[in-house]
């Protein structure tokens, strides 16, 4: 109820600002030059760190503050390779020294606990507060544990989600290492929409990659509420070739819809109680929503995500707040690292143009989601997105998935490009 009231207030506030813009010709903000403005960015993940860096690089005189609770960020992309046993957690961990020292971003290690849109202020856990001209929120995701009976957030210590990378990834890796040969790994996959659509299927590929070498009698079972998934044909082709019948995927109407998790018994109950699947290692990836601060700030819709003007990523709730990354509703753009990286650039350009009194652009961006089935077998889905008719849409005729039935050379090249993609995008963001 509190949120609902606040949302209406924010909306009214937005409309008032728009009216002022039409009437007078300039809001107080547009009177600023971009160089004198203060932009606060919340969240130092892919979207937020990109936005902060590009704002500063495009407008060096602008004051840009990035607020992130952790000293380093571990990317979710690449974390499956740690589970595969051929990448270290250090290799997917990134710090903020270059944003601070080279780009001149003011990086503050703190947590935002409140947003007051009226006074354009964010409150920090340390007790400080900061005033902004424009606020970019890149809060990532949080989990909806309430949607699954039997399990709660604290149970992630025994049944990891590993869908925010870091200690959760290491916990799942340790459990796989401790699992006996002949054991069963069960992935309980999330319903749409969720972070990284092909992620669960790359994950089971990487788990199978590790098990095939070290514990070849083991089994991988995916319990999935969905009837299909991203790059399904490609994954199934790769699984059949490399893992035989080690991986078993069960879709929603085939016993995959889990209704309850028995935490102490590591057992998933599916199919109206008909199916009980016992795991040695269970990996439950819950249903998802925008990060908590987006809800606290009154920026989310009934589905739990932040609606934005997809041209600029400005929140529909407030004229000075932008939401990017997995938390936003972005049309055809997926909840992926590459999309968040693109949105960081789009929002930087949108803010600079608005502060300079220029019309918004119709942004166009290219995105690739790579995934590994083995160390030497990569697959991809590509897209070019454009703002068209009020939404981010895939350009007709562009993009698509890697072709089926390709040579091992093609797959190896895509695996090499997967690693090049990781090196490139993380350099672009934190390097």
């Amino acid at each position, binding site marked *: 109820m509190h949120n609902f009231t606040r949302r209406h207030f924010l909306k009214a506030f937005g409309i008032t600002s728009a009216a002022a813009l039409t009437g007078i010709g300039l809001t107080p903000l547009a009177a600023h030059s971009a160089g004198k403005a203060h932009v606060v960015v919340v969240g130092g993940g892919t979207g937020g760190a990109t936005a902060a860096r590009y704002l500063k690089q495009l407008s060096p005189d*602008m004051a840009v503050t990035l607020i992130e609770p952790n000293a380093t960020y571990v990317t979710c992309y690449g974390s499956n390779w740690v589970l595969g046993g051929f990448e270290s957690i250090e290799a997917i961990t990134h710090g903020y020294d270059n944003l601070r020292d080279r780009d001149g971003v003011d990086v503050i290690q703190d947590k935002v606990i409140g947003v007051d849109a009226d006074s354009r202020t964010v409150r920090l856990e340390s007790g400080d507060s900061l005033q902004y001209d424009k606020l970019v929120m890149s809060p990532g995701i949080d989990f909806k544990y309430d949607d699954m009976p039997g399990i709660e957030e604290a149970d992630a210590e025994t049944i990891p989600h590993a869908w925010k990378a870091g200690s959760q990834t290491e916990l799942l890796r340790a459990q796989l290492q401790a699992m006996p040969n002949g054991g069963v790994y069960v992935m309980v996959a999330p319903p749409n929409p969720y972070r990284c659509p092909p992620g669960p299927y790359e994950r089971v590929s990487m788990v199978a990659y590790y098990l095939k070498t070290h514990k070849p009698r083991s089994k991988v079972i995916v319990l999935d509420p969905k009837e299909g998934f991203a790059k399904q044909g490609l994954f199934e082709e790769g699984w059949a070739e490399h893992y035989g019948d080690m991986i078993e995927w069960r879709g929603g109407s085939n016993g995959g819809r889990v209704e309850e998790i028995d935490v102490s018994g590591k057992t998933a109950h599916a199919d109206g109680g008909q199916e009980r699947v016992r795991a040695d290692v269970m990996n439950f990836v819950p249903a998802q929503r925008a990060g908590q601060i987006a809800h606290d700030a009154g920026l989310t819709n009934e589905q739990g995500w932040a609606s934005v003007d997809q041209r600029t990523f400005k929140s529909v709730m407030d004229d000075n707040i932008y939401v990017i990354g997995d938390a936003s509703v972005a049309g055809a753009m997926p909840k992926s690292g590459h999309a968040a990286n693109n949105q960081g650039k789009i929002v930087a350009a949108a803010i600079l143009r608005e502060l300079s009194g220029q019309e918004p652009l119709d942004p166009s961006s290219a995105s690739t989601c790579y995934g590994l089935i083995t160390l030497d077998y990569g697959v991809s889905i590509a897209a070019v997105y454009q703002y068209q008719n009020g939404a981010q849409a895939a350009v007709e005729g562009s993009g698509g998935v890697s072709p089926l039935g390709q040579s091992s050379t093609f797959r190896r090249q895509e695996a*090499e490009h997967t690693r090049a993609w990781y090196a490139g995008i993380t350099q672009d963001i934190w390097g």
Partner: protein
Amino acid sequence: MKHSRLFAAGLVASLAMAGTASQAIADNDEITRGQLMAASCKACHNAAAAEKGVPDLSRVSAGVIQSQMRAFRDGEREATIMDRHARGYTDEEIEAMSVYFARF
């Protein structure tokens, strides 16, 4: 085609006015759609990715970027993924983005 050349010539002229190639975009310069498109490409086509075999486009001329993007798009050059990307751009868009890579 004439129209495209004029468009590209205009961009080159505005680039020349904007100053040196390596300079950050100054406050009063307008950020263009072509620049934003090139910034998107840069995530995969920078120096770090080049160490793993993907071309760093800041070292490729605008003319080569244009000809190769058209070749990928029109099926004249084989690719694992660039054909799928290149089909998302018109000639005008390829020209608009191509002039920005040297500035990164």
